[in-house]
């Protein structure tokens, strides 16, 4: 069997209708005056990333690894701007030591993390970090919220942004794999 044959066709089974929640999430971030967003490309955030890149009010940074986003967000706040970081649960593991920067300086931090390894996961390599994301974040002092439905994502991110930017908190919103839909292989 060739490597190509080992992986079923991904394209054939992708859902065709785009979900509405990324558009509403974009509006929430704008309403909360977020001005900088950094991201590691992620299928769960693909629509939101596209909206942000094309928004002239937003500065976006594509990262080589997720912890860079923690440093950029801290710098943004030093300069008076609100920032958010988008990543997948696997990337949360990359951030652990760097999170000391935001926690120690008590810098507002809003992490939007799409979950893998949690619900209908096909790839076993995603399960470890998927299960470890919440305890690892809590262990370094980050407050964790869950959003389990599309409606929940909007309300949860909105209040998390309020807590982060008005009360100098470091907050991660974990967007449940059920919101994103099972990855079709």
């Amino acid at each position, binding site marked *: 069997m060739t490597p190509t044959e080992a992986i079923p066709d991904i394209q054939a089974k992708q859902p065709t209708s785009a979900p509405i929640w990324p558009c509403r999430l974009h509006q929430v971030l704008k309403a909360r005056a977020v001005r900088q967003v950094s991201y590691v490309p992620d299928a769960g955030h693909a629509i939101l990333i596209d909206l942000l890149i094309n928004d002239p009010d937003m500065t976006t940074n594509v990262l*080589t690894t997720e912890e860079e986003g923690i*440093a950029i967000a801290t*710098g943004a706040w030093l300069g008076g701007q609100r920032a958010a970081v988008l990543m997948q649960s696997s990337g949360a593991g990359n951030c652990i030591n*760097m999170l*000391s*920067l935001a926690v*120690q300086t008590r*810098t507002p931090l809003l992490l939007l993390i799409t979950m893998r390894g949690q619900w209908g996961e096909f790839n076993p390599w995603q399960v470890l970090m998927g299960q470890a994301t919440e305890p690892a974040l809590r262990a370094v002092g980050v407050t964790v919220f869950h959003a389990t439905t599309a409606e929940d994502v909007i309300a949860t991110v909105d209040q998390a942004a309020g807590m982060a930017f*008005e*009360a100098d908190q470091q907050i991660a919103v974990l967007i449940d794999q059920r919101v994103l839909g099972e990855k079709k292989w």
Partner: protein
Amino acid sequence: MVNECNGMDRREAVRILLAERKNTLVVTGLGSPSYDVHAAGDADSTCYLWGAMGAAALVGLGLAQAQPGHRVLVITGDGEQLMGFGGLATIAVAAPRNLDIIVLDNEHFGETGMQVSHTGRGIALDRIAAAAGFAETGVFHHLDALRQLANRLQQAAQGPRLFVLKIKAENLPRSLPPRDAVFIKNRFRAHLGFMPC
């Protein structure tokens, strides 16, 4: 082996670069660069890092993007910047015109027992930055060129710049900045007119 001339005095190098800092905002990488910048004179417009190795240049990026009217100067070490290696690509792609990185390069991990670093084994961070697309890069071996570099850092640039300063591998008496990160952050933000929550 360090280098041919054994490198510059790091304290003097930093003192020259910061002598006319004007309204430049400064971010320091953990360890000796923080001590060097503190020894040159504490300032509200300096944010010292005591940890988060690899963060300094990227804190500089977020700050530069938020404050396009200020020049932002990151002063860090070779080991710290090596840990933020990928960040050079992120900065090059972001292409801020107001961000400069100074790497104080003693080719060693000085805080941890003077082990030879990658820059002592052939990695040239200025050439890495140039290949990534930084607007200006260079390497300096002598103090007498630094007054000119200090002037250059006050001038407008077409994109991010990175300059390597080859310094002596030595551990000087520490000049300790405050370690209270919230104090440093609030002091820095107050300098720019922002209040605590």
